[in-house]
């Protein structure tokens, strides 16, 4: 398998996953509208092939590397992050190889699965991890056969994945209860099948037409000043000063990304004078993996320019914080965005429930903030993993605060003190986040049974600190029950963040019901404007 074949296989997997996106989404086991696995995987895969699509590289290592890098940047949701790690493992296995034998392809699949396992703190069987490993094993078995080809290896991988997916309900109780297979694993199976389909098509075409011609390049109109060259390389050295390198590179071009550590720094810049960048950078250390691409053959800039133009950018801070720490929060809903902004958050990444932002989205926000140290608040469990990748791709120091809900995020930001050190702030913010109790209220989108709560589609359900605890027919009763279970009478304040689907009358009714049951509580009603949850309650 060479680079162009891998490219075609990736494009095939994208097309096939795109066709099955909704099917994967439907495998959601929770009754709440959640970060949709199919959508997250598809968006991650789209990023992975964004530049692969335009690459004419014949080396498989190059295509794999681009896909690995871009998938990491575009990773959304936990399934997307794991997928990006699969690409990374694959890329590291095929490093320096221009073509893969069937055996090497199978090895790369196995290494991809290993990398995915390593990326997860507590690997769970019955998930995409298990499916990736079984795909690798089946591929390895097929590669041993006489007359093995890339297609037979891939075919075995896809078959192995399918068998593993079918077994996932026996490994995870939550899947068995819901009567579904694992969504992430199924997504991976679809991707492998898509790769196989495109390879088989290509082989059939090859037999008929001979060598494939490169896809026609889109013609682009260059702006007058030109876009120069996309220049990327690694700097190896000792005691490398990432900030100094970034500063030096930034003066020579735009779309600058300089990230790494004291021994290895990755540089990406769009410049009109690549030789100058290379000469200057070689003073810092030895250069490696140098890649200079003519921007005129790439779509990339157009998208970036469009992105930059539509982004208003940060408003200049009134006064620079003395502690030099910036705050970035992931949240959506106009009211909640405004609340986070007014509490001093420097940049907002729109997203959260069922719209998990990518690592790239969060990276851009982090880069935009005028501080070198950034505290990132994911405010959702499914955003956590992608958030944790940001620190590895920026020269800034990014600390991810474990906020799983919006009220936790708000409590943490309230506790932030502009003159206190990073460590003081992190511990105070975490303590504040933990002190808050969150109740999220919505209607079940499907029947389900979990945590011994039986839910019918359309029921009002309450999630206490992200766990489904109560269900019933009306908002007031379910909320009161959830608050009783928390011992809300011992708290002082409940803040109700009303979602876009909650009317003013709903909010007043809920507020009155709470006041009736808990006369000692202070109640504040805020318009959150969030989707999916008509009410989010913060109890402190």
């Amino acid at each position, binding site marked *: 398998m060479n680079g162009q074949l891998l490219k075609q296989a990736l494009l095939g997997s994208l097309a096939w996953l795109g066709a099955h996106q909704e099917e994967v989404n439907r495998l959601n086991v929770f009754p709440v509208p959640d970060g949709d696995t199919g959508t997250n995987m598809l968006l991650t895969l789209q990023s992975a092939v964004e530049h692969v699509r335009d690459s004419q590289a014949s080396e498989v290592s190059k295509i794999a590397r681009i896909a690995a890098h871009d998938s990491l940047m575009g990773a959304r949701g936990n399934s997307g992050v794991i997928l990006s790690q699969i690409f990374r493992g694959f890329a590291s296995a095929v490093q320096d190889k221009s073509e893969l034998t069937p055996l090497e392809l199978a090895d790369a699949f196995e290494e991809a699965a290993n990398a995915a396992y390593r990326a997860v703190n507590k690997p769970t069987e019955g998930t995409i991890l298990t499916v990736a490993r079984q795909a690798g094993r089946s591929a390895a078995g097929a590669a041993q056969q006489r007359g093995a080809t890339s297609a037979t290896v891939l075919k075995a991988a896809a078959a192995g994945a399918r068998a593993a997916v079918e077994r996932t309900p026996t490994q995870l109780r939550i899947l068995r209860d819901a009567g579904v297979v694992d969504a992430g694993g199924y997504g991976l199976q679809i991707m492998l099948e898509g790769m196989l389909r495109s390879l088989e098509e290509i082989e059939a075409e090859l037999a008929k037409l001979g060598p494939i011609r490169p896809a026609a390049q889109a013609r682009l109109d260059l702006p007058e000043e030109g876009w120069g060259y996309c220049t990327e390389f690694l700097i190896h050295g000792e005691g490398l000063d990432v900030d100094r390198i970034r500063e030096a590179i930034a003066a020579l071009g735009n779309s600058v990304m300089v990230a790494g550590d004291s021994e290895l720094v990755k540089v990406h810049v769009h410049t009109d004078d690549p030789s100058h960048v290379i000469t200057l950078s070689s003073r810092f250390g030895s250069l490696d993996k140098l890649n200079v691409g003519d921007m005129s053959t790439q779509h990339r800039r157009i998208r970036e320019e469009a992105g930059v133009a539509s982004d208003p950018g940060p408003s200049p801070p009134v006064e620079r914080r003395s502690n030099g720490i910036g705050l970035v929060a992931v949240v959506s809903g106009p009211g909640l965005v405004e*609340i986070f902004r007014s509490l001093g958050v420097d940049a907002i990444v729109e997203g959260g429930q069922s719209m998990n932002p990518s690592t790239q989205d969060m990276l851009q926000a982090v880069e935009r903030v005028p501080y070198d140290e950034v505290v990132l608040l994911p405010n959702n469990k499914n955003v956590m993993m992608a958030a944790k990748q940001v620190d590895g791709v920026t020269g800034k120091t990014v600390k991810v605060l474990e906020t799983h809900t919006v009220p936790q995020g708000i409590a943490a930001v309230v*506790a932030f003190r502009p003159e206190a050190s990073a460590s003081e702030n992190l511990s105070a913010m975490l303590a504040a986040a933990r002190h808050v109790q969150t109740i999220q209220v919505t209607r079940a989108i499907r029947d389900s049974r979990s945590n011994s709560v039986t839910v019918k589609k359309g029921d009002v359900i309450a999630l206490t600190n992200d766990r489904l605890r109560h269900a019933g027919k009306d908002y007031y009763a379910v909320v009161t029950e959830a608050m009783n279970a928390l011992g809300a009478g011992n708290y002082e304040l409940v803040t109700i963040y009303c979602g876009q689907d909650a009317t003013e009358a709903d909010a007043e009714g809920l507020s009155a019901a709470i006041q009736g049951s808990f006369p000692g509580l202070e109640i504040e009603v805020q318009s959150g404007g969030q989707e999916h949850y008509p009410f989010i309650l913060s109890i*402190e």
Partner: protein
Amino acid sequence: MAGRFRVVTDSTSDVSPQWRERYRIEVVPLRVLFGSDAYRDGVDMSSGEFFTRLARADRLPTTSAPSPGDFATVYERLSRECDGVVSIHISGELSGTVEAARVGARSVEGFPVDVIDSRCLTICVAFLCRLAAEAPTREAAVKMVEDRVPRQRILALLDTLKFLEMGGRIGRASAMLGSVLDVKPILGVTDGHVAALDRVRTRSRAIPRLVELLRRDLPVERLAVMHAQAPEAAESIRVQLTQELPDVDVETGEIGAVLGTHVGPGAVGLAYIKRS
């Protein structure tokens, strides 16, 4: 009595009626204006009456410093009763009162008036007045007071930002405090400046924070819990502090109308002078 002097302050020092009488402290009132109705702070209206009216008012009252003439009148009268005056006032960063006192003092010829900018306000100024009144001589009083000016601190927990915002006095604290959510700010006054130290959503989170901030400044030689229409909250803080700091005499004071206009009812705080 030969060499005897008197202490003058303004109504923002929140000197209690008892201290005023015992130490013969003269208090020059600031003015509070509800629309066109002008009241002399603490004279025409008690603190309780003021907060009742504040709760009913659709617009915030405005406050204004005494005129130099107000001070001159008091100094003039005292020049016939004693040999000199130590006049201690709210920080010049926060009010024009101390400047009015200086101008007023110059108009009374041949009568020594030491005007001191406390660079603080409320109970801290009351502490300084009492110390001055207990000093043997005017010179000693001035020295004692000036010595303590840099050691005073106020920590205040506001129940709401509303009043501070409406009064336009957020100033430097605004970056941290302007918020859609109802946050309770913890403000500090050090060396004349008001700064936002922290913000919390609930009183139960705030009180330990106030105590923690105080702890950093221990030991203290004077300490008071103060409040604006929140005697119960103040008392519970006082009890807690008495337990934690058995060696310190914890006093209680009430926040008057002028300051009350800016902090709003429900505010509680600590006023103290650090030991040198």
